[in-house]
């Protein structure tokens, strides 16, 4: 179980960091939350103070630099509104459909999805009382191009889509608002006409509103307060709360108080933000254990506490009786998978044997059992459109060593067949590795385990690594498989090459996978006229991946939450990436 524990104690955050860093938001689950959930958005009493116990520091509170799923979900409900947003709802179809937020509708597209326009509502204001203008939105989007100053975030999507020519020397011709080169190109790509903002893209982007709702790259930003990197922890809110003092403390958190310049009449409180507590206290820890100790004890103010720290297996035995009534188990948008190295495991039969021998049930048990994950049959999360159970992986989840051995013999390789399994070291991952190793060895592999510390992702993206299988985790950036398959397996957008055309870095295509068939399907999907056709093409592309064993799915992570007894309307839905949703939440006073 990825514990999202901070680096220092464990050097084991790698597994957790995947989910947190790479996979941001969106996605959904087809299991409505069970356990302590109290249903859809019934109104809670206003007032009181919510304690939010957080077990790792955020990367920034600048909207254009946020990419942690939990931070996107929480800040969307409290501080940062955007053109459209996902409503809280237990039905993933509803929660995955954006509704208007700062805009009057969910956007209109022309030219087959290449041009998108939104009109802003009247009376929308920043926390300092000034109006949120179209120019603020435009300025926010321009900050995606200043990725040399504003590191992190998810601006690369809008940067890649906006119709601005590429610089032959690398990057875009527009160098961002701080350097200003190519400003006229950006002014043509994003235009303001009164309260209407128009985005011009270089290719169709049929699911652009989903990206707006999920990520914060297109959020408005007030140019007058922008100090570049020095604005990293500044919060200029436009939501129902503001940060007391205006800055977030990376090691301590902050206190959210009511924003008196927020007008609920411009919002849809019953869909997006009930904003029940008068105050939200963020408190930072470096590990989940002290948080869970407090939540189990449920004393004093902790009765009104929630956390994004999942319950680690060591605590399972304490979660019984009345404590168990305060829990929720929900399938998350995050999928864990293995990547066979196509350069070393060149024989498809060997890769198939590896997939068949993989003991997914044992893997899940080593993570913490059914409260830690459920078997996955595809890299596409079951909550996403385009998901289908891939035949290649649909067999027994315990692994079938005999069938795998037969395949290895058919392949005519010498047994035992040596392989090296590389994973990010943590106590949990050491256990799952032991289980995977045992299953593979029964099938005739000889496994060397290669646990890596902090440098994990810097090693597995190297083209000349000698690992045969690596571990990885991913969650969609918004509810579309377009944010799953191309970012992970399209060699054209992942590989970096040197002047001689040699591949120097694999990006996220850790297995050195290159397939013309897959890439042409992705191209067709990218330019598909509508979302349904796009999803069909992506399902086909996923089948190509599965048949090539470009990946071996392990499990969909399960989030197992514990919250205080005073919490009302506890919800974990697709809109909040299965984290506790701050939209409907309330506290007992």
């Amino acid at each position: 179980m990825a514990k999202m524990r901070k680096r220092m104690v464990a050097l084991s955050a790698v597994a957790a960091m995947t989910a947190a860093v790479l996979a941001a938001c969106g996605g959904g689950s087809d299991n409505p939350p069970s356990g302590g959930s109290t249903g859809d958005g019934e109104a809670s009493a206003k007032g009181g103070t919510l304690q939010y116990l957080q077990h790792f520091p955020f990367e920034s509170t600048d909207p254009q630099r946020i990419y942690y799923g939990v931070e996107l979900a929480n800040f969307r409900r409290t501080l940062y509104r955007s053109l459209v947003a996902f409503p809280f709802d237990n039905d993933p179809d509803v929660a995955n459909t954006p509704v208007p937020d700062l805009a009057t509708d969910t956007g209109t597209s022309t030219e087959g999805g290449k041009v998108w326009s939104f009109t802003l509502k009247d009376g929308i204001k920043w926390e300092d009382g000034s109006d949120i203008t179209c120019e603020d939105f435009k300025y926010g989007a321009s900050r995606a191009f200043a990725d040399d100053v504003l590191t992190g975030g998810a601006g690369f999507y809008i940067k890649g889509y906006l119709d601005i020519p590429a610089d032959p020397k690398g990057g875009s011709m527009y160098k961002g608002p701080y350097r200003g080169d190519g400003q006229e190109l950006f002014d043509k790509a994003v235009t303001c006409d009164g309260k209407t903002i128009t985005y011009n893209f270089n290719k169709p982007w049929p699911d652009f509103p989903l990206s707006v709702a999920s990520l914060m790259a297109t959020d408005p930003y007030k140019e007058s307060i922008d100090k570049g990197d020095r604005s990293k922890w500044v919060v200029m809110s436009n939501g129902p709360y503001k940060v007391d003092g205006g800055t977030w403390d990376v090691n301590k958190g902050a206190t959210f108080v009511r924003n008196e310049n927020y007008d609920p009449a411009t919002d849809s409180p019953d869909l997006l933000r009930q904003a029940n507590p008068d105050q939200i206290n963020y408190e930072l820890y470096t590990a989940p254990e002290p948080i869970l100790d407090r939540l189990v004890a449920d004393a004093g103010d902790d009765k009104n506490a929630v956390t994004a720290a999942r319950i680690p297996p060591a605590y399972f035995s304490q979660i019984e009786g009345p404590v168990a009534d305060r829990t929720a188990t929900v399938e998350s948008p995050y999928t864990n998978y293995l990547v066979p190295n196509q350069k070393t495991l060149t024989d498809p039969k060997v890769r198939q044997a590896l997939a068949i021998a993989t003991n997914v049930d044992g893997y899940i048990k080593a993570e913490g059992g059914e409260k830690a994950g459920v078997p996955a049959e595809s890299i596409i999360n079951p909550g996403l459109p385009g998901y289908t159970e891939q035949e290649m992986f649909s067999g027994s989840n315990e692994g079938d060593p005999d069938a795998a051995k037969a395949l290895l013999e058919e392949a005519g390789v010498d047994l035992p067949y040596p392989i090296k399994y590389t994973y990010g070291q943590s106590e949990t991952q050491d256990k799952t590795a032991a289980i995977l190793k045992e299953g593979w060895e029964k099938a005739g592999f000889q496994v060397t385990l290669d646990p890596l510390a902090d440098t994990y992702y810097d090693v597995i993206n190297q083209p000349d690594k000698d690992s045969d299988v690596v571990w990885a985790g991913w969650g969609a950036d918004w509810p579309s498989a377009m944010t799953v398959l191309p970012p992970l397996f399209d060699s054209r957008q992942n590989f970096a090459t040197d002047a001689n055309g040699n591949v120097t870095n694999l990006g996220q295509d850790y297995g050195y996978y290159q397939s013309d068939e897959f890439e042409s399907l992705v191209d067709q999907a990218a330019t598909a006229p509508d979302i349904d056709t796009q999803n069909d093409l992506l399902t086909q592309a996923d089948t190509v991946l599965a048949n090539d064993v470009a990946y071996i799915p392990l499990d969909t992570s399960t989030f197992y939450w514990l919250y205080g007894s005073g919490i009302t309307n506890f919800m974990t839905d697709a809109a909040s990436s299965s984290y506790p949703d701050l939209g409907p939440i309330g506290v007992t006073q």
Partner: protein
Amino acid sequence: MTVTPANQLEERTPDPKGAGPTAITSNSPTALAFARFRKDKKSWVALVVVVVYISAGIAAPFLVMFGVLDPQTANQDLLNANTLPAGDFWGISWTHPLGVEPGVGRDVLSRIWLGITYSLAVSLAAAFIAVFVGVALGIIAGFAGGWTDAIIGRVIDLVLAFPQTLLLLAAAPVGLAILTEQLHVPDGALAQGMFVVLVLGLFGWTGTARLIRGQVLSLREREFVDAARLFGASRRRIWFKELLPNLWAPVLVTFTLYMPAFISAEAALAYLGVSVRPPTPTLGNVLKDSIQYASGDFLYFFAPAFMIALIVVSFNLLGDGLRDALDPKGDR
């Protein structure tokens, strides 16, 4: 400790305090020390524990070879739905006397037992390096004096001033790369183990060097050394035949006190992820996982911590006992 050269021992009147009731017989300092040690019950217990640990450590690899201990096989069927050991008393049984590991179900006793082997091997090797380097440099510095002494003294200061733990964490990847790529040590547990041994050894010798230097400074002015010099003894003879025999007591004591320090250092390093890595079950690796289970699986939490505490305390008591026996007038 004795500073009397061996050839004068016979003539010397025994110290009545240490000689016991029959003051007539002449006892060697070794015999006197042994007599003192024999009366120290606490140290005897510590010695027994240490001997048991060392025998267990030597036996473990053979027990694994013959299948008596099995630190790797998973038994997930012995776990309950919370993936903790099923059954009462933390899942202990005849086949798994200390229960099984949560999540995977590997035998805890086997993992701890084999962990003792790894921990003792690492600390023993590191202690040998530390004592060897320390004694060699201590004798050279103490005997040569002058510039040599000054340079060695500054080197000691430099090593002591190094932020060891930080350096270890930062230098681990580099150190490992040098071992595997330049020196062609096979990647994996062996290289990681060698790295820890080298680092502990090469940073741990300073205490011994200072102690030995001090001893040598006083010894080299003694009459028997002067006599040897007058007879034209070579420097090597003076070092090995005149000085070293008078140094074995402090060397033995420091060696015994290095062991517990290195055992706990290894466990701490394993916790920080720079020692021998899993799946090799060192005591530190087992402990790192087990400390999460203080409430969930108490036996699994308690056993490895207790094993480390016991061996560390025993070695410390043994070292103290030896020092008391060999140097009754010495300060604690």
